[in-house]
């Protein structure tokens, strides 16, 4: 195992640390890891300018410290594990293809943006654009799982195509914006314009949410597929209400303003 411990808080200019990634580090000895480049603004620095580095040649990386200003951790990773004991900065696990990232604190915007595989778990709150498409791109995450324990910001799952996002706390506006597929579970509901412009995909809200007028009510039921989804979520430690006796899911179809065939399922009891 490799342990990186932040020496002192990064403040002001953010640190871009895409070299904190199992694919980059796994084969390196301690000295080579220390020498890996990170960028403080436009200045190239070494990892050991900011972190105490213990261990070598491992796919398991533990990072300690308040990394809220440290960006791009785990960018494009395909394997291994990163555990962050503290907060994480923007673009955590962006373009990720496999492996696991665990964060004990909070994360910032663009968690798992355009990821295509792997698992990201954030215990605390996260920012906006989780699993989203970067500006201009046609699709956001295309597979993989993101589980946020706390709240989330704007545009969660924007243009996501496949994969699963679970948000524990409330999400802000535009959750599932222009969604093209995949599943977005909002355990504490969301603010305005959920599913705006969505084409396909499923948004499940366990709390009542304000819906756009362009979503049409179709029926109330507990879809069969919920059993499979519930089982999968159970393996991640997340409960989904399933018993028809306890209530039903109201299904809304939309977004009809773009001739979308997505669905929003709102738990009703």
């Amino acid at each position, binding site marked *: 195992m490799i342990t990186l411990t932040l020496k002192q808080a990064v403040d002001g200019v953010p640190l871009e640390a895409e070299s904190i990634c199992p694919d980059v580090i796994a084969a390196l000895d301690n000295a080579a890891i220390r020498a890996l480049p990170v960028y403080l603004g436009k200045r190239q620095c070494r990892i050991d300018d900011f972190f105490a580095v213990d261990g070598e040649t491992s796919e398991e990386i533990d990072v300690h410290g308040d990394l809220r200003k440290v960006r791009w951790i785990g960018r494009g990773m395909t394997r291994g594990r990163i555990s962050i004991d503290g907060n994480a900065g923007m673009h955590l696990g962006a373009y990720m293809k496999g492996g696991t990232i665990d964060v004990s604190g909070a994360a910032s915007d663009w968690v798992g943006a355009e990821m295509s595989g792997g698992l990201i778990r954030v215990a605390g709150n996260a920012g906006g654009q989780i699993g989203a498409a*970067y*500006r*201009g*791109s*046609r699709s956001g995450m295309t597979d993989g799982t993101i589980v946020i324990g706390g709240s989330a910001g704007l545009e969660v799952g924007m243009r996501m195509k496949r994969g699963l996002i679970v948000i524990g706390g409330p999400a802000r506006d535009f959750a599932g914006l222009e969604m093209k597929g995949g599943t977005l579970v909002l355990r504490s509901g969301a603010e305005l314009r959920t599913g705006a412009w969505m084409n396909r995909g499923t948004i499940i809200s366990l709390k009542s949410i304000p819906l756009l007028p362009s979503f049409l009510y179709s029926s109330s039921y507990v879809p069969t597929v919920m059993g499979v989804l519930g089982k999968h979520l159970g393996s991640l430690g997340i409960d989904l209400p399933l018993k028809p006796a306890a209530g039903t899911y109201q299904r809304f179809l939309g977004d009809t303003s773009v001739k979308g065939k997505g669905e929003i399922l709102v738990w009703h009891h």
Partner: protein
Amino acid sequence: MVKITGGRVYDPANGVDGVVKDIYIGEDGRVTAEGNGSASRTIDANGMLVFPGGVDVHTHVAGGALNFARGLVPENQRVAQKFIHTPELRAGIGGLTPTTFATGYLYAGMGWTTVNEAAVPILSAKHTHEEMHDIPIVDKSTLLLMANNELMLDLLEAGEFERAKSLVGWMLWASKTFGIKAVNPGGVAAWKWGKNANQLHQPIEGYSKVTAAQIVMDLARICDELGLPHPMHLHQNNLGVPGNVGSTIETMNMLQGRRAHLAHLQFHAYGGHDWNTMRSGAKEVAEAFMSHKNLTCDVGAILFGDAVTITADGPWQHFLHELTGRKWGNLDVENETGCGIVPYVYNNHKLVNAIQWAVGLELLLLIDDPWRVYLTTDHPNGGGFWRYPEILRLLMDVEFRKAEVKKLPPEALNRISLPEIDREYSISEMVIVTSAGPARALGLKQKGHLGAGADGDVTIYSATPDADGVMFTHPRYVIKGGKVVVEEGQIRALAEGRVFLVHPEFDPAIEDFIRPTFQKLYTLSFENYPTEMTRLKHPETVGCVPQ
């Protein structure tokens, strides 16, 4: 003085075809016949090919539309080639809409030393010149969009040809541009009414008399009478429409022997009636084209992969957006023109794209006079200019081309004639379509050849293909105006390019007509409209010879 020794020189404009000889470039940056004095630099080109620097006759590398496209496609820039700041080079990004500095590095890095920016509205002429200021190494010229200019159309409607001619002359000088571009004549003006100009002989929407045909003929005549070095540069009506062969050939006939350059002819050579029946019309177009010796053309070939379509042809771009569902940008340039941007992917599994790919190559192969057909991709509409070497390989290697044709969808094969064509380009023909021909069409006498007095723009390639079988991607040396700018595949030094412009004669009284109209119709004052000469870096005025 720079001396290039031992290379096989290809200079078709001077009848030199693969002869081993020395080339001398004097201190003034021009080729000299004899080396007098000692060479400050001798380049041993033994076993290499020596060409005049490439000339791109139709590209989009600067100005309002391109900058709008840069903003519209950040996703392309994220994956584009990065140019890292060094003590010699500025930072930038490549890709389909490169930044200014990167544009110069990319063209020079490929061996091209002159580029013609093919669409400038007067309102963004200042912007264009500011960008060209920052495109290093290559020499530049620009074409002014006139075929949808409302002041111009009003004069044609009123039958005031002489005034229209003066207006064009005034506007060329005001914008410090080099020639005239006509884009979808009348169609962009009609687009302001939600219409297009699909019929050549019907009045343009918003006018009662003036037609697309009249705009084409009058502008061609104006270019001749003003004596512009480059004839009218025409993007015809009905670009991209299946069955547009008819209007393309009609336009050629209509010009009745007048000079004209037909831009990106590939997009105007489709047969069939709709997308389901579309087929190549390259044979008919090539035949008609060859019988009109007054015309030149560039192909605007497409390559499979990403592209960004940028054109003043606003109505077509709206259609393309509806067709593809991709994002769309639209600009209205007051009384002058419009512009549309749609990112696009040419897919080799799609029938339509496969036909388009074949049509570009067919035109290059079927038109038997390389002096009149030039290599372009209408960058970035058909693909990035830095992919020209891929097209050259398709032209020069028939086996490779046939192997690529086999990858097309089978239903495409009986709609194209490419599989039956066995022609291969010789090295000399390749130099003609990439340099000597376009230089001649642009009327730039010092470009595209290596005779005495020519600009010292020389590209030296290895005579053997690289590991991927591609030649002409990375020149061994590129010399611009006698300065070695690329060496061993690296940009070693920068040269500053010139900007070519014209100053035709016109009746100065035209200002009395423009000024009041202008103050009534435009959003900026008349005094702020023209581009000042001081805005241009290294301007060079090319003389006009009225005909």
